[in-house]
């Protein structure tokens, strides 16, 4: 590998590390297949989002400082999660004496699909994935990082994940009735507003089920964990995969 190849720090959200190692492996392998030099710093922990969204951003100074110390030296930081990336960018409290690192990390951290399309400048993936796929746009990726145009706004439509998936041979992209409605996960919302959370999840699933989606995919495992949890309780045969898993499998 060319020594000038940028060095990517792989940021794996804590729950992905613990529950979805295959998503992390797929992300790593995919980036490697695309010619990237990737390292996973072993000292990483959680970005602090659950605390901050629950109203305790002020208690995340230590967590944020740790994150900056771990990832500060990389050329890019990439994560298979729009939500955690958004948190690092928008909701880290100001960390005293690390202002420079903080602003560098803010500009160098990317969600996986936006890294591939915007930094690696790959707009088309060659590969095969003969399945009927429904895409769940996670809100933090969609409206927070603007990974796709939101249906509320009058702007030219775009979707970075779709760009990477739509050319895979055999992949049928399913258009939903409500293209970007929230699934109801919402972190602690999923337990503090349990009834609403479940209802929203059921409604979101129904949209995919009505359109005979075979595999539901998305860029955030948190939303998928919630939707899969409901589907599995229903005994639904629907399968769930992270976008990284589809891409990594498709471009063998």
């Amino acid at each position, binding site marked *: 590998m060319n020594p000038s190849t940028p060095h990517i720090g792989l940021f*794996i959200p804590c729950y*992905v*590390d*613990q*529950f979805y*190692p*295959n998503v*992390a*492996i797929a992300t*790593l392998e995919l980036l490697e297949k695309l010619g990237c030099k990737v390292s*996973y710093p*072993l000292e990483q*922990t*959680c970005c*602090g989002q*659950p*605390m901050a*969204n*629950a*109203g*305790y*951003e*002020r*208690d*995340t100074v*230590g*967590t944020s400082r*740790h994150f900056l110390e771990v990832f500060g030296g990389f050329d890019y930081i990439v994560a298979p999660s729009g939500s955690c990336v958004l948190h690092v960018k928008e909701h880290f409290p100001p960390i005293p004496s690390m202002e420079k690192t903080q602003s560098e990390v803010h500009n160098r951290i990317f969600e996986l699909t936006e890294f591939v399309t915007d930094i690696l400048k790959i707009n088309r993936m060659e590969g095969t994935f003969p399945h009927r796929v429904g895409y769940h746009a996670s*809100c*933090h990726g*969609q*409206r927070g990082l603007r990974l796709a145009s*939101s249906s*509320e*706004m*009058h*702007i030219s439509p775009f979707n970075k994940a779709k760009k990477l998936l739509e050319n895979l041979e055999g992949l049928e992209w399913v258009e939903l009735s409500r293209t970007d409605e*929230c699934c*109801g996960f*919402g*972190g602690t*919302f999923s*337990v*503090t*507003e*349990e*009834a*609403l959370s*479940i*209802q*929203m*999840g059921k*409604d979101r699933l129904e949209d995919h089920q009505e359109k005979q989606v075979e595999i539901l995919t998305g860029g955030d495992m948190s939303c998928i*964990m*919630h939707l*899969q*949890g*409901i589907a*599995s*309780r229903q005994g639904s045969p629907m399968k769930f995969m992270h976008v990284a898993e589809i891409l990594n499998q498709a471009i063998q």
Partner: protein
Amino acid sequence: MSHPQAAAEFLKDQAKAKWHDETLWFVRDKRDRISKTIPEWEDLRNLASEIKDHTLSRLDFYLEEFEKNALKNGIQVHWAKDAEEHNRIVLGILQKKDCKAIVKSKSILTEECHLNPYLEKNGVEVVDTDLGERIVQFLHQPPSHIVLPAIHLKKGEISELFHEKLHTEKGNEDPTYLTQAARIHLREKFLQARVAITGVNFGVAETGEFVVCTNEGNADMGVHLAHVHIACMGIEKLIPRRSDLGVFLRLLARSATGQPVTNYNSHFRSPSPGKEIHVILVDNGRTAQLAREKFRNSLKCIRCGACMNTCPIYRRSGGYSYGSTVPGPIGSILSPGLDMKKHSTLPFASTLCGSCSDVCPVKINIHEQLYEWRQEITKTHGELGKSLSMKVASGIFKSPLAYKISGSLMRSALKNLPKSLIYHPINSWGKGRNLPETPELSFKEWYKRNRS
């Protein structure tokens, strides 16, 4: 009742909850479609936002300007610090005119001030003339939505109500028939009222005029037949120039109901000869909100209700679940400023999905303010347990070793605990959802074996 309890209650009637969601989604969809027929839609949102930002940055100047011009036009201007003073001013005008019955068109401000019960206690009959508001008034309920006050009711319920109150045919649920009955009933009230109250959509500083928008024509029916028109206006309703109305009238109805403009848009500048117009400028917490820098721009709201129609929570929990005068996302950032303790669960009644901010015609960063309110609320009203568990979690994530131990403990616990415990009803996650299967290795463990 907290928001989660009220929402769970609302969702018990699954069929009605689904209907509520779909009806409001239909309104949002209409809004989406019409907004996309305007090429400059996003420019208009930017302009509206900037005009309101500017106005708030010079609010004292524009208030004086508005007052000066309104007085010049023969409008009487009153100032009210709070709801109580507002209500007293209204009653004072009524008493001077020896008036015992009034008609009132839609005004969220008078709801916020609880004007109706105050006037009724003082012997004044108040008739809300907007059809939806009249319906909820008959039921002694507040509006459940700021634009669609009776959206929580099915026509069968309204038919029953009208049968009792207006003696319509039993079982006749035809909306045209029911509306006609209300027309006849309210026309009599319009013809008798000597004082009419309206809200204000926009106050124009440079001309001293104010604008009231309706589709039914009820505001105008009231004020043009009455001798006295009282307009109740929050101080944030100001805009600098008449030409700014072009921006706001293009956005308001399209955002609210997906129609190109409301059917009646009345500009009041001077009373008819021999008649009176009073404007009451009301603070009631607005200057306090102006002083909160992070929440200041919530005062840009033009009350279109688009954030309610788009909100996946509002659509599935109904307006009453919020327990505040203004429900939905915008209500959840306004209400804590009025009473943080009472409304402490509202900023948490959100997934922070951000749809409200993208739909807002004046670009209020609603979901970011929800996040900021959470930070404020936990400072003073954090439940101890929640606060403590967050501190523990924070301690874990600060230290890689502690994180590693707790992570593998968590995984082995999930694997070995009996299902009955994980899915115990008190475990909110497991009530309606299965947990993910627990893998043998965490990614970190895999990475150490395979890459380092």
